[in-house]
């Protein structure tokens, strides 16, 4: 199931909640090497919804320091998926 390899999970934040309510956009964590087309196809297949546009962002992992030990959180890719007007993804309503 290729779509589940690409889509890694929802991003639930104040910003993403607002974007969903105002612009009908859902925000996802996606595989780092996935491109917009792949993401569009995956979302359409997995959630059975029509996608208008996909925008992606490379998110740099945060530097976490605890005492002298410095660590780094993993970099990841965020995808903001704009749905066609009237489309909805129930999965995101529940998060």
């Amino acid at each position: 199931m290729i779509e589940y390899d690409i889509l890694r999970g929802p991003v639930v934040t104040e910003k993403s909640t607002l974007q969903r309510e105002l612009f009908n956009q859902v925000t996802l964590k996606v595989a780092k090497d996935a491109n917009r087309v792949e993401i569009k196809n995956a979302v359409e297949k997995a959630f059975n919804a029509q996608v208008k546009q996909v925008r992606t962002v490379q998110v740099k992992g945060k530097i976490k320091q605890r005492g002298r030990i410095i660590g780094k959180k993993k970099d990841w890719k965020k995808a903001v998926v704009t749905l066609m007007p009237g489309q909805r993804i129930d999965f995101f309503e529940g998060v």
Partner: protein
Amino acid sequence: MQVKIEDQSSIKKVLSFEIPKETISKELNKAYAELKKKADIKGFRKGKIPRKVLENRFSAEVHAEVAPRLIQEAFAEAVENHKLDIVGGPQLEPPELKPDADYAFDITVEVKPELDDIDLQGLEIKKRLYEVAEGEIESQIYMLQKSMATKRKVEEERPVKENDFVLIDYEGFLNGEAFEHTPKVENYVTAINKEPLPKEFSEKLIGAIPVQDLEIEVVYDDDYHDENLKGKTIQYKVRLKEVQEEVLPEANDDLVKDLEQFETLEDVKASIRDNLEKGIAQRVKHEMSEQIFSQILEKIDFQVPQALVQGELNGIIAETEQAYAQNNTSLEDVGLSREIMQEKYKNVAEKQARRHLILDKIIAQEKMELSDEELDAGFEEMAQAMSATKDAIKNFFNMDPRQLQYYKHTQLEKKAIDLIIEKSNVIEVTPDALQGADLPSEEAGVQA
């Protein structure tokens, strides 16, 4: 809010509530607003979490908090409005709270039964005039002597009799060999014909004259309490060294000097008489109240709420457990359990519950109240019984108003009983005349 009250019986009612959805959404809004301030969810700043997200995450918790509150408020209001006298806890199985529907639920409660007025006139009570028997005082003095008795060697040469004490050495042998669990014991003083001395010992020792060597064979039963001895036959070599007898101290003033509180024998006798008289007074009162209740119960019939019976039952069981605990045993040790007790004392508990209900009714019916002086006298009495100061008792009750309420109630109940006795025809009889019919309840049955 709407309540429908349905009487299932004189003591059981079902309250049906229906809380409108407007009230529910108002309550929910309040709860979520409160939660919004406190909740902390990753990805959101504190206080900026949208309602939707809160609902998704916390709806179960919020409903679990709001539903009981709604139920409790509604229930309290219903109790207040309809003047329900509820005993025990209400029973309910609340359905799940739905945010956009009316909330309907049933509560089953037990209420105190409404009793008809009780006619207190014309009860006939027999009062038995017991008297302190001189013999009883004598026997108590004898017990005292016995407890302070000393043992003395019998100088003359005579055989051992019953009720003597003997001084012996003994050693037990199993199959002719020394046995580790019956080692040699010297200068052991024991009473003849009393536990734990095996009866074989007593049989052989009676008639023997000191100093004398004896061989005694004891067969221990298979169910003997000592693991090491049971089922075995032990030959004892016994040397009877002395006969001793018990010497009772003379009953005179010297005897009572050791008892500290008393100076003379007469004092002790007076104190014993006093105690016996108190006991008799209690017994007479108890008998009279027994008669009263059995007669009143003849007159009126009512149902007793199960919660009250259970309450009485719990009291009885707790008391018993405490009594056993003081002796370092437990219910289980004496072959009882809470279940057995429940079964055994069910009737007693129900009777007690009935009594309390009757007394409650009489207190209400006669509009009885406890004056401050009477309360004070009660404290005084309790202080004496517990050998504490009156102030300490007062403090205790002032600290705990519920206890005070409870205590006042018990005093009122006592007063009620006195009142009934006052109003009844008390027939004084000598105890001998009634010897045949001993149980007051039976008498009442015959009369009716």
